[in-house]
């Protein structure tokens, strides 16, 4: 090549080389710009991401608050038990390990399979795994002697939710069960971390499912703690960095009375029914019992599938809370309310008498409504009508009543709606009105319907809780309180405060007098329970008919079928003349109210008054 040509070539090369190196320089700038964007501009978000990678927060389960009765005795408590816990990451071969431990601790086939199933996953993330729950003291002793051979196994305390009265408080207290969804709400720990929670209950993450365990779940739950671990990219926890202890839930003090609840259960025996007792001073629910029942201990701490399904399919419905969900015709126990309605609306007074031939003929169509006693009670005034439970008197009074007004009046006494402030899943039962009947049954309200309401039959149904609430308003001379299971200072109320019922003092006195006579006088329908106690009591018994029949003979025929027999009901309060407690008792298919339900009510009152 000649010199000029070489010069041209060199220049050509130089410009092209500079061009390519300029592109390289641009590449450097691009990288530098991107690194600047990452490290300076978006630093905080990447710093956070790196921290999130590094830290793994694990919740620590808090102890749940305990539940006490009104005398400070525990109804539900946390019972420590001892579990055998292993650290799978320290165990090389789980099969060999099980072979070694089996002579020391007895393991069922199911426990072995469960253990092996979970082993690999737990070993990988460095978590502990329970080998056997609820060790006996013998097993603990046997293990402790040999523990030097098992560096990867230890015994630790785990709690169980236990009641010393597992059967009698089932419906009111309710049970807890394993549940993870409540923790979705917690903001400081991601939801997925809850599977690694440090548990202190043998049954895992528990939550109130029914009863006041559910109503007061928040109160009882406490605050979970937190342990933050440094973690590597394989999910293995390297070392703990931070620890916040959990806070135990608050204890719940209730108005329930263990002794009275026990006496309700005892006197009800194996009959189906419900008992509710209310403290007249505060409206506290002292007794809320439904039979048959089930064991909350078993439900809270694990029950076999067979046991559970046999409870579910039991025709006696043990899960059904008859006290707050059972719908029963109030029968004659409604009569004081009808009488109060008549007095308020000046339809009757205490003096005027009515002829009771034993039946009432509806003027419109001649239909006959019978009383419980053949031949009737002759001339009856309001007091006598209550004492002897004259149907005719109240048929006639109801006949003269306006159903819309009567319906409103019964509503103000708590019928047809929830009355309890903190009961779980309470049923409002049913209070009929003309409007309802027309809209739902497409038939107008007949005066005959009102006549039925007059004796607590027909469409009207109430729960034992409503009956107890209603009779406590009467016992308190019109003062309406919200019945509540928890003590005042802790109670929450799901319902609005009810209005008081106004009636003159004289009327109240006479009403109390009449209701006292039901039990204490020689003519009272519940006089058979008069001598069961050392104090005076007031009340009204009732016999709820399940089948509407025209004659006693017809009833004797159906009586053979137990489930068609009348329900036995009583509402009562005492001691008179200054009552402290009101109680309602319903015994399914128990027949005659005074004689059957009456003694149960008296036992409960006695127990509440410490008069046994």
């Amino acid at each position, binding site marked *: 090549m000649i010199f000029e040509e070489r010069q041209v070539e060199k220049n050509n090369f130089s410009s092209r080389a500079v061009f390519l190196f300029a592109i390289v320089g641009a590449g450097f700038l691009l990288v530098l710009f991107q690194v600047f964007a990452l490290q300076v501009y978006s630093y905080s978000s*990447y*710093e956070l991401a790196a921290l999130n990678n590094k830290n793994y927060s694990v919740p620590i389960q808090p102890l749940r608050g305990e539940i006490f009765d009104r005398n400070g005795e525990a109804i539900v408590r946390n019972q420590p038990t001892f579990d055998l816990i292993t650290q799978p990451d320290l165990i090389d071969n789980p099969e060999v390990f099980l072979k070694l431990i089996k002579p020391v601790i007895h393991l069922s086939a199911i426990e072995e399979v469960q253990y092996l199933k979970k082993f690999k996953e737990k070993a990988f993330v460095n978590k502990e795994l329970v080998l056997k729950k609820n060790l006996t003291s013998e097993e603990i002793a046997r293990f402790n002697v040999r523990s030097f051979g098992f560096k990867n196994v230890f015994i630790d305390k785990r709690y169980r939710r236990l009641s010393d009265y597992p059967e009698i408080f089932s419906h009111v207290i309710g049970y807890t069960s394993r549940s993870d969804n409540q923790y979705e709400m917690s903001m400081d720990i991601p939801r997925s971390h809850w599977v690694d929670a440090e548990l202190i209950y043998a049954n895992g993450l528990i939550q109130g499912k029914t009863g006041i365990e559910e109503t007061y779940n928040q109160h009882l739950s406490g605050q979970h703690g937190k342990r933050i671990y440094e973690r590597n990219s394989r999910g293995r926890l390297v070392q703990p960095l931070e620890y916040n202890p959990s806070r135990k839930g608050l204890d719940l003090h209730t108005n329930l009375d263990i002794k009275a609840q026990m006496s309700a259960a005892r006197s009800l025996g194996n009959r189906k029914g419900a008992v509710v007792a209310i403290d007249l001073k505060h409206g506290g629910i002292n007794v809320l019992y439904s039979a048959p029942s089930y064991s909350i201990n078993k439900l809270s701490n694990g029950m076999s599938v067979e046991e559970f399904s046999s409870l579910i399919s039991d025709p006696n419905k043990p899960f059904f809370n008859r006290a707050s969900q059972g719908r029963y015709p109030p029968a004659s126990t409604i009569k004081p309310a009808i009488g109060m309605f008549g007095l308020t609306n000046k339809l009757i007074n205490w003096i005027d008498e009515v002829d009771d031939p034993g039946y009432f003929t509806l003027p419109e169509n001649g239909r006959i409504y019978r009383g419980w006693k053949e031949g009737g009670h002759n001339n009856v005034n309001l007091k006598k009508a209550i004492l002897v439970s004259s149907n005719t008197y109240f048929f006639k009074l109801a006949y003269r009543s306006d159903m819309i007004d009567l319906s409103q009046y019964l509503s103000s006494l708590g019928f047809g709606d929830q009355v309890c402030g903190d009961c779980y899943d309470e049923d409002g039962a049913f209070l009929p009105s003309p409007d309802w009947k027309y809209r739902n049954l497409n038939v107008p309200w007949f005066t005959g319907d009102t006549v039925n309401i007059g004796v607590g039959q027909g469409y009207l149904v109430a729960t034992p809780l409503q009956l107890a609430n209603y009779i406590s308003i009467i016992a308190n001379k019109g003062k309406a309180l919200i019945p509540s299971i928890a003590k005042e200072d802790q109670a929450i109320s799901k319902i609005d405060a009810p209005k008081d019922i106004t009636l003159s003092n004289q009327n109240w006195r006479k009403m109390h007098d009449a209701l006292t006579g039901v039990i204490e006088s020689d003519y009272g329908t519940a006089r058979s329970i008069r001598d069961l106690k050392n104090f005076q009591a007031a009340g009204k018994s009732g016999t709820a008919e399940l089948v509407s029949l025209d004659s006693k003979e017809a009833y004797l025929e159906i009586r053979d079928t137990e489930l068609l027999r009348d329900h036995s009901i009583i509402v009562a309060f005492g001691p008179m003349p200054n009552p402290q407690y009101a109680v309602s008792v319903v015994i399914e298919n128990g027949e005659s109210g005074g004689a059957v339900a009456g003694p149960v009510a008296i036992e409960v009152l006695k127990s509440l008054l410490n008069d046994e």
Partner: protein
Amino acid sequence: MMNKLTKIYFDPYLFFSILILSTFGLFFLYSASNGEISIVIKQSIYLGLGFAIMILTSQADPDLFRRTSLLFIIFSISLLGITFLLGPEINGAQRWVRMGSFSFQSSELLKLALPIFLANFLFDKKLPIQSKEIFISLVIIFAAFFLVARQPDLGTGLIVALSGIFVLFLSGLSWSFIGGAFVILIISSPLIWNSLLQPFQQQRIATLFNPNSDPFGAGWNITQSKIAIGSGGIFGKGFGEGSQTQLNFLPETKTDFIFSVIGEEFGFIGVFLLLAIYFFILMRCLYLALSARDRFCRLVIGGISLTFAANLIINLCMVVGLLPVVGMPLPFISKGGSSLISLFFAFGIITSMGTHKKFLPQ
């Protein structure tokens, strides 16, 4: 006149900047391997060997490389062929040929052999170079690319092809030809995407544009690398203190992603200094190319140093999330025997081409 026997061909700028770079690299590697000293010892042995090779290589006269260029490329290609036939499969790709105790990535040699061969082919051709010469060059480039890409290692294949294209471009390829080729490339890109790229390669490119679509799969590496670099901030977390690195969130810390380790532990300042050293090396290469004694040396220095630059920038862009993940080490710092040895060999050639002068014009 200087005594020819005592003359040592040596470029202090290149030598010391590479020494600084690779010495710091040992510290980075120590941190990246969670303090495993044996890896660092092995690496320093390779470094020592590398510097020896570099100094030895730079003593050879450029004419030696020119005369042996055909032999060199035939040797490289046959090594590749042996790999293709016998090489063990590592991660589904046959790139390694085992030579005694260490594996040698055979395509590394081709990155040097191809530009030297093309420089020898083109250095005495008249300007502008003719279509016949372009055609022959392109056939050779494509053959080399095809051999490497079939392994399959598309990334290295592209680098090999680039090393040839750089020489072709620097030797005076006409601009109209470049423009035409560029248009054809763009038009045929859908065809390349569908027929040439393996599904996993398509996945990597797709992941680049949306790493969050699969944060625990293909996007994991990019996401974790960005977190590592980003969380380093301006000053870094300190030597051995990078949680992303030390807790193994970062993948491939010792090889492809060692830049992220530097970014996390030494921050923006560390990155800036590192890039400055690399840039200085490249500028020195440009200077040597411009002042080289003849066209052959210019083309070789240009081709090899630009290949080095492409290698570097691809790695950087990959770890900062600007390019899809391809296996490409960070020169002089990433762990690895064969890439280090061939790098030192390359800079030995550059030094040789840049320091051998002819005092008399031809």
